[in-house]
């Protein structure tokens, strides 16, 4: 398998599979994913819990847990992270190339130190800024960029509100000047009003600094605001890919339509099971036919649109 490392891509995944060892057997959370993300673009990964979107997002951020099994290839900004079923470069990209905006900002800040300490740590360890005065100026800029007062720097995480701590994590993600930011469910713990603010903030800042953005979400309502492109994942596979507007206007995969129609995904009663072969969605698909017992090919349509469904193949 030859993969040309092209510089214009922020993320390149070729036949990427990610799984967890479990006493001999392997549970594959992500299967055979092909994905390219152009530099400076913004991509939303959408799916319900158990779809493998978080695992994929973590891999892009260089967070590969122990006992992970990998297959295929993952290249981030020209750095080979996964190659020949081995993790080889996760520590080279963490912080330096990719940072992550966490799902639970409240628990993701070090509860034992003041906020400023985390900024100093990032600036010192990633960017090598040791001089306190320079670091301090840099931190001021970051804090005002996310719309916070400087007072927060002297506070402890438990003294911050949910919205404030999410802004702090965004500022921290920007502190190391990354090329890519992965936002993992950035709005799941916020109310509707804050949600809009935070999503726009992430979009504007990544536009301003030219950062490629990967947003992982189950909430299709924020995709239109924050992303240009979107992939839909189900049970570890990408079932559809395209511009956000196109997919929302005319979804080609039945799962995408379900997502768009569903008011609240988390309440979906269906729990994804282990992949049993064929089309990942056929057990739940209203249009399932005998054909769906075979795995459908990934169909490439015009304008970057891709879909994995036998109905479109016909």
């Amino acid at each position: 398998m030859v993969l040309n490392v092209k510089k214009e891509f922020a993320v390149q995944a070729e036949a990427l599979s990610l799984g967890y060892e479990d006493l001999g057997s392997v549970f594959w959370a992500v299967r055979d994913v092909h994905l390219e993300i152009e530099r400076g673009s913004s991509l939303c990964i959408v799916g319900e819990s158990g779809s493998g979107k978080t695992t994929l997002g973590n891999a892009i951020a260089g967070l590969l847990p122990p006992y992970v099994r990998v297959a295929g290839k993952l290249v981030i900004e020209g750095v080979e992270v996964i190659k020949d079923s081995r993790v080889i470069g996760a520590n080279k990209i963490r912080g330096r190339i990719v940072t992550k905006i966490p799902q639970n900002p409240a628990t993701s800040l070090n509860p034992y130190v003041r906020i400023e300490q985390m900024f100093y740590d990032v600036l010192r360890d990633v960017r090598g800024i040791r001089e306190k005065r320079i670091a301090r100026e840099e931190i001021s800029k970051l804090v005002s960029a996310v719309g916070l007062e400087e007072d927060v720097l002297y506070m402890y995480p438990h003294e911050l509100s949910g919205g404030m701590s999410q802004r702090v994590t965004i500022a921290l993600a920007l502190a190391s000047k990354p090329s890519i930011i992965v936002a993992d469910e950035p709005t799941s713990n916020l109310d509707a009003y804050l949600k809009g603010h935070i999503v726009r903030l992430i979009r504007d800042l990544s536009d301003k600094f030219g950062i490629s953005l990967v947003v992982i979400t189950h909430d299709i309502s924020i995709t239109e605001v924050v992303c240009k492109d979107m992939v839909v994942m189900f049970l570890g596979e990408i079932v559809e890919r395209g511009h956000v507007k196109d997919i929302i206007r005319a979804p080609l995969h039945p799962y995408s339509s379900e997502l768009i129609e569903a008011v609240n995904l988390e309440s979906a009663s269906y729990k994804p099971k282990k992949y049993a072969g064929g089309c990942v969605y056929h057990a739940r698909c209203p249009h399932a036919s005998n054909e769906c017992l075979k795995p459908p090919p990934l169909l490439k349509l015009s304008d970057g649109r891709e879909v994995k469904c036998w109905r479109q193949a016909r």
Partner: protein
Amino acid sequence: MVKYYVKRTLLGSTLIVGLLIITYLLVYIAPGDPAHVWAGKPRGPKATEAIELARKELGLDQPLHIQIVTFMIRFLTGNWGVSIAFKQPIADVILRSFKATAELLLFSYMIAIPLGLALGIFMALKRGSKVDLLLRLTSSMFISVPRFWLALIVVFVFYLIGFQSLGRMDPRFSIEFKEVTGFYLLDSLLILRVDIFLDVLTRLTAPSLIIAVYPVFSIAKYVRYTLSERFYEDYVIEAVSLGISRISILTRYALRGVIPAVVQLAGINFVYSFVETTIVELVFMREGIGKILVDGILRSDYPLIVAAFFTVSLILVAVNTFTDILQKRLDPRVTI
């Protein structure tokens, strides 16, 4: 926050009152005449006189609650009476022995806490590996060796190789030596005698290391588990994803959260070690609380044992109160 300190200290004080009551009841539950026991089970011509004196001291002709109050007032005012075994005021005997025990115990913990932390961090980083398994087996083995027996073996080996390790100090120094604080390590430095200092230090090291066995492995085991669990906390994962260096994550993120609990654990272990120390002292023929207990039992010096019991419990209340407060101080999230 201040309110918590006051509350914790108040609890400590009520515990002291409770301890006094238990101490008194120990006198009372003894079969036979409590005055007979309190007087040291005397025999001979002066026995009746001694028993009458004890009866007056304990106030046995009064109702029980008055007895307890009298007993408490006597104890709290420092009027502990005269030791039957040592023919000296009990308070003096206890203070002297207590300093000897404290020197050994404090020295031992000064070794044990850093060593336990270091070992625990190492094991946490290696958790799941062969080295970790080996270290865990080693620590299980060390913990299953009773410390008094270990002390015995060490004393025997030192005897075989002719190494002087018994007592607190070489007897030939006893004339030149002047007690200032009662802590020999400190005193020898105060009188500017390096040779005495080294002698005291060598005699202190072996028993200290033996007492340190339990806290070292208990702290290491705790740190190994809690620290390695911390590696999967959201805030540590976030720090990793931000590219913060491993050493910063270890010290300022993961370990920082473990320290308050280690302080409390050290406090609990201290209670246990105190008991071990009394026995290890005995084996190394050092003076201390252990010797008080043995002499007390041999001479039926009940007031002395009760005083030792009360003093040790008092220290343990103080240590527990202190570590509880320190633990809260170290955790910024606590805002009581």
